[in-house]
């Protein structure tokens, strides 16, 4: 999985400042293969072209209050999946999944039932990973209500959604 450096330019933008130099400075500090996780108060569309010129693919995800989280992945080292959604920070040090599920060919809503069932059996801090056919939008609130954290995104070919769920530690 690509390692990301976090850059949060929201305070700069809220203060009316220009975040471009900060982003470029962070870019200079990246190790080969590392990606950039950017937080902004708007969808920074002009930046996408600039970053594409420098060899980064992007995937963006809206946050609450009109804010955006954008992942820039070095195109040469595009990981197997473009991780798109991340509701909370601090995803380093997640252990290898204790359970791996392929729920792609189950009738809805069976994938959700099985993921919740397996998640409830995880030991504290353990993770499970599951492949599903669609973004499991009804599952996310259930996971959050139960205190799980999750990370998910469509696979590079767009045919499946890979979800990783971590039990509260």
């Amino acid at each position, binding site marked *: 999985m690509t390692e990301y450096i976090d850059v949060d330019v929201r305070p700069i933008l809220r203060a009316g400042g220009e975040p471009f130099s900060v982003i470029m400075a962070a870019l200079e500090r990246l190790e080969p293969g590392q990606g950039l996780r950017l937080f902004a108060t708007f969808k920074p569309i002009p930046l996408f072209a600039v970053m594409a010129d420098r060899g980064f693919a992007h995937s963006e995800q809206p946050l609450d209050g009109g804010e955006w989280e954008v992942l820039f992945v070095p195109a040469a080292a595009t990981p197997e999946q473009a991780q798109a959604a991340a509701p909370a920070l601090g995803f380093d040090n997640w252990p290898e999944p204790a359970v791996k599920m392929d729920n792609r060919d189950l009738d809805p809503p069976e994938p959700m039932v099985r993921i919740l069932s397996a998640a*409830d059996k995880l030991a504290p801090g353990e993770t499970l990973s599951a492949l599903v056919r669609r973004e499991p939008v009804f599952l996310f609130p259930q996971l959050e209500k139960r205190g799980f954290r999750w990370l998910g995104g469509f696979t590079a070919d767009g045919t499946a959604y890979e979800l990783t769920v971590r039990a509260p530690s």
Partner: protein
Amino acid sequence: MIGASISKWTMTYFAMALAWLFVALGLMVAGIGYPAADIASADTLVLVHAVCIGWLSLAMCGALFQFVPVLVARPLFSENWALPAIGLLAAGLVSLLGGFLSLGGRLPPALWLLPLGAVLLTAGFGLIVVDLGLTAWSRRTGPTRFVLVGLASLAATVAFGAIFAFALAGRAGSAGDVILASGIPLHAIAGLGGWLTLTAMGVSYRLLAMFMLAPDVDERKSGITLAAGALAVVVAVAGGAAAMFLASGLQVAISLAAILGLASTALYGCDIAEIFRNRKRRQLELNTRMATLSFASLAGTALLGLALVALGTFTAHVGGFAFLAIFGWLSGLVLAKLYKIVAFLTWLETYGPVMGRAATPRVQDLVAEVRATKWFVIYYLAVWAGTAALLLGKPSAFQVTVAAMTIGVAGIVHEIIRIRRLTDVASPLRLPTGAVAPHLLFARS
């Protein structure tokens, strides 16, 4: 939050929509409005607006309050607007229908009810268009684009309708009278074609692919279908409006719109056939099987339209044409999808909180498809027979077919209430510890 929660008021919209459907069916059984009265009569206006606003628009709005957040994986812009909106729509519709009844002499003169109804309906639909539009805007892809075009068409429909209401009350000046004199086809095309049909198409792309485990239709393909449909509405509304002010006929604009509409319908048929071909799930659920009857009705509507134009009798038979579009295609699809949506939302609301912690039923355990099938079959057969009765000019036969439709709808509604009350779920699974039975008319969230 990322994700979608259960829409609190969707069931409320569905319940009120079904109540209006019964009102409309009752009017037709009683022989009020077309075909007993002229198609442009006040009685027919009552009937058409009870169906299109009360039944179809409320059902569609209720579905969209749930569906748009699912499409964009974000909560609604404002959940709190849904309840005042339905109150405004109900009051506006009652007022509008009162105005029509007064216009036709069934009520004492009170034409002010028409503009009052228009203002209330505009406020209600305005809240809904802004709420759903702002929610949908955050991810403008695939089915969401259909919904956005549908909402824009709804705004156009409401604008025309409001002008008509003021003009009928004698309060829209000479420009209003000009628009009233020739703008009614544009109002109907924007409403039935743009708002109801394009939105239903967009919703069906995702629901069908989801329920049949099929890949989504390629965005470029569905985009062309949408472009043809949207262009048909734009040509009809903008072209028609321009023609009105140039005092030339609407013929050119409407003919062009009809060709584009036909093209869009044909492309949609290809897209839907592709979803069926590429499905992983071979065994189809009731809602999908019944939806195919609705697609057949849409194809039938298109062919009927072509045949009537070729025979030069379209104007004489526009009532039969509209009846098949409204009850075969739109109402049939909405009833089939309601059956599934209510089951799924009820299941999620009741068992979501305890899932994985206690044994829970499957969604299929909430429904009794074999029992429900006959009601849908009665409904569709009655709709097709009713269309034939209208085309053949047999008003009493038509009343009998609508009575049969009413029996079918009553059966379907009875099944939907059983689903909501978990009546068909066997006892140990019905309410596991921690699960709460849902309320019939709204979701506890």
